[in-house]
């Protein structure tokens, strides 16, 4: 079912007169990769701004490699160039650029770029080339509202990999059967996108069918990081004894011999097969009406835990020690401390925004981490986003250095996601009343 993904690359000197080449390559690649015209234009605009900025900010002798990748349901542009001390603060959602200040006008382009794409990522590893990645998802028609349906009993079922029509049917039946808010992942509201996600090979699914070949249930999974698989479901569209267990086992058999160390299930559906999972913890999602909804995150390791080194700040050490002991996860905890070393001037966070929650992730460290956090919190509060999370990678030493600022501003550790980044990921949740 997987299709050819493909990529188109161009290498250019960082000179302004090369800008039309970059724009053409990006736009034409996006169109060739099946991206609708409006989305392709937005991506081209982002690429234009990034290339412009690089031309102005970096040495003219340098060159950049722009790689356009077909992700099937998205297009990705990587700008690969020698490391430099670029100031990328404008990539912050809460960048406070002064429009009256001419010296900051150049950075406006980055702000425009950041807001024209769905996600961006910066890889800035010592000894490596710098990679600035832009992702833009294709637009898909949303599914029409489905009339609620009753979940019926079935005596027999079988499981098999689905075809495209099965997948679309699964989305529609799931939307009609599982009506509670948050029960289904948002991507399942776009059946065409869901099909493309599976075709891309990034996601996989198994469906259960009843004796009449109708879809009776399903489970979806994707590689979240190199070592972690995120599982959604199982979703049951019919009642059949043993079906949730069979779907989970199918998924585990498919992922069990992969490079992944573990699977994470935050869909809330894992309690259908509790014997397969361990409880990682619970996240409370606050709602505008003052109510809250708890979501339990489940985990299952696929192989014997190889153990790993974890970086932490001393303030976080007791929490991590206690959690790792509770979860029986062997970890070598190393404490980082700031010893006066110089940092970038400005930090950069990425922001994943939903209607009810935001997840911030550090892209670059900087001297202004605390102030940048405050700006983000102010902006998100103005947008009435009740649930604000900050995700740090415990496998990346400089992330741990941000902990004091996070604790000071009211973030509390709430969940460890084993192997979900370079190391384990720690999710910290903001509670306004907890600011120190």
């Amino acid at each position, binding site marked *: 079912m997987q299709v050819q993904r493909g990529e188109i690359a161009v290498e250019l000197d960082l000179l302004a007169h090369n800008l039309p080449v970059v724009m053409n390559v990006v736009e034409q690649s996006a169109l060739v990769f099946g991206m609708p015209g409006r989305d392709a234009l937005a991506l081209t605009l982002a690429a234009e701004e990034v290339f412009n900025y690089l031309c102005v900010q970096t040495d003219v002798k340098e060159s950049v490699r722009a790689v356009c990748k077909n992700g099937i349901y998205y297009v990705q542009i990587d700008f690969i160039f020698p490391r430099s001390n670029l100031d990328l603060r404008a990539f912050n959602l809460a960048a406070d650029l002064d429009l009256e200040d001419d010296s900051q006008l150049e950075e406006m382009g980055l702000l425009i770029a950041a807001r024209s794409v769905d996600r961006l990522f910066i890889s800035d590893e010592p000894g490596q080339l710098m990679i600035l990645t832009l992702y833009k998802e294709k637009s898909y028609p949303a599914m029409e509202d489905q009339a609620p349906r009753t979940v019926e009993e079935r005596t027999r079922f079988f499981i098999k990999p689905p075809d495209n029509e099965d997948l679309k049917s699964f989305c529609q039946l799931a939307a009609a059967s599982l009506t509670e808010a948050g029960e289904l992942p948002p991507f399942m509201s776009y059946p065409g996108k869901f099909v493309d996600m599976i075709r891309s090979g990034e996601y996989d699914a198994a469906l259960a069918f009843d004796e009449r070949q109708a879809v009776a249930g399903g489970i979806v999974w994707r590689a979240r990081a190199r070592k972690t698989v995120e599982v959604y479901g199982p979703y049951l569209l019919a009642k059949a004894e043993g079906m949730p267990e069979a779907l989970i086992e199918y998924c585990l058999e498919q992922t069990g011999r992969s490079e992944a160390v573990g699977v994470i299930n935050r869909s809330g559906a894992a309690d259908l097969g509790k014997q397969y999972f361990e409880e990682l913890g619970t996240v409370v999602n606050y709602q505008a009406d003052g109510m809250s909804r708890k979501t339990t995150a489940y985990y299952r390791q696929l192989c*014997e*835990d190889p153990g790993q080194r974890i970086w932490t700040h001393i303030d976080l050490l007791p929490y991590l020690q206690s959690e790792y002991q509770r979860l029986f996860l062997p970890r070598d905890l190393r404490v980082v401390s700031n010893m006066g070393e110089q940092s970038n001037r400005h930090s950069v966070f990425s922001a994943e925004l939903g209607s009810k929650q935001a997840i911030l992730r550090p892209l670059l460290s900087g001297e202004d981490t605390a102030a940048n956090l405050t700006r983000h919190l102010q902006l998100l509060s103005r947008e009435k986003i009740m649930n604000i999370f900050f995700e740090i990678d415990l496998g990346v030493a400089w992330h741990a250095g941000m902990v004091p600022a996070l604790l000071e501003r009211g973030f509390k550790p709430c969940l460890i996601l084993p192997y979900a980044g370079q190391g384990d990921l720690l999710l910290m949740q903001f509670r306004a009343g907890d600011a120190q």
Partner: protein
Amino acid sequence: MISVAFDNLVPSYINKFDAYIPSKPDPELKKMFGCTTLYRLNNNENPLGPPRASREILRGFNPAQAAIYPSGDSYYLREKLAETHGVHPDQILVGNGANEVITFVINAFCEAGDNIITADKTFAVYEWVAIFSGYEARLVPLRDYAFDDEAMLRQVDRRSKILFVCNPNNPTGTYWNQDKLVRFLDRVDGRQIVVVDEAYCEFVEQDDFPDSLALMKRYPNLVIFRTFSKMYGLAGLRIGYLVGSMDVVNIIRKACVVYSVNTLAQEAAILAIDDREHVERTRRLVKLEKAYLRRAFDRLGLSYVINEGNFVMLKLPISDTLAYRKLMTRGVMVRTMTGFRFPNYIRITIAQHEAMEAFIKGLEHIL
């Protein structure tokens, strides 16, 4: 630093393949899990160690010999094995563990576009070697925990080159008897190579286990794998071998790496072969401790798969990998079975009673 476009150099089948990461050494594991002793019940090693005569060889090894290359084709060991099995020495190829002879066979017979056929829930190395060598591995589901002969035959097409049968199967311990293997070989009718991996054959107690060495005379496409890692307790020296008809071995020899088996392994293996007392002692231990485990599992109300071999499989009401971590903190290391496509099962190597008791105590504690 120059930039290297590794993607342009690496075959796509390697890019798609996920590397296997073995467990850390025991001292590291003990440190990680905070345990002082460690019962290794994960690799189906022989808890009694090597036979007595092999131990003497290991103790008496002359360090000066380490500077000399070993016999490149394990000459004396092949002579000894030939005498034991009633075949010609040139019908035997020795490798650095059975894993290496798997590679020899696959490389000898497969080319781009070919496939091998085996079970989905068996020793993973047949599948891995095929995939990282660029060949398709067709995996047939087990039937009642055993290799499904008919389903395997249905998977055969004109590009199928090798059918791998693990007999008895690791991890389920099920086996094909003489009649079933003969029927299968008749159906294959010489169109493919049939590999029967008998890594655990010395543990089998049943009379109808095939005499595969005798069958080789009738079926020149039959290749048999044996190892010194299990019954003979030489896992740390890495030594295994294959036996086949002269014609088939002459072909496999072309893809065989010579000088890969060290001197110590060759000499220890020669002396291991004749130690019947070691085999009997090991069998007695396995029988006794299997019975102990069976009683304990029944008492705990757990379902299990106990057949041939020096291992048993247990179904847990919790995640097998969580059970592994919890048992490790109590100094017991088992094999999780999710990677064998048996979620929530663990495989336990039969070991001395003290280790079995520690395992059962640990199990009672974590459940």
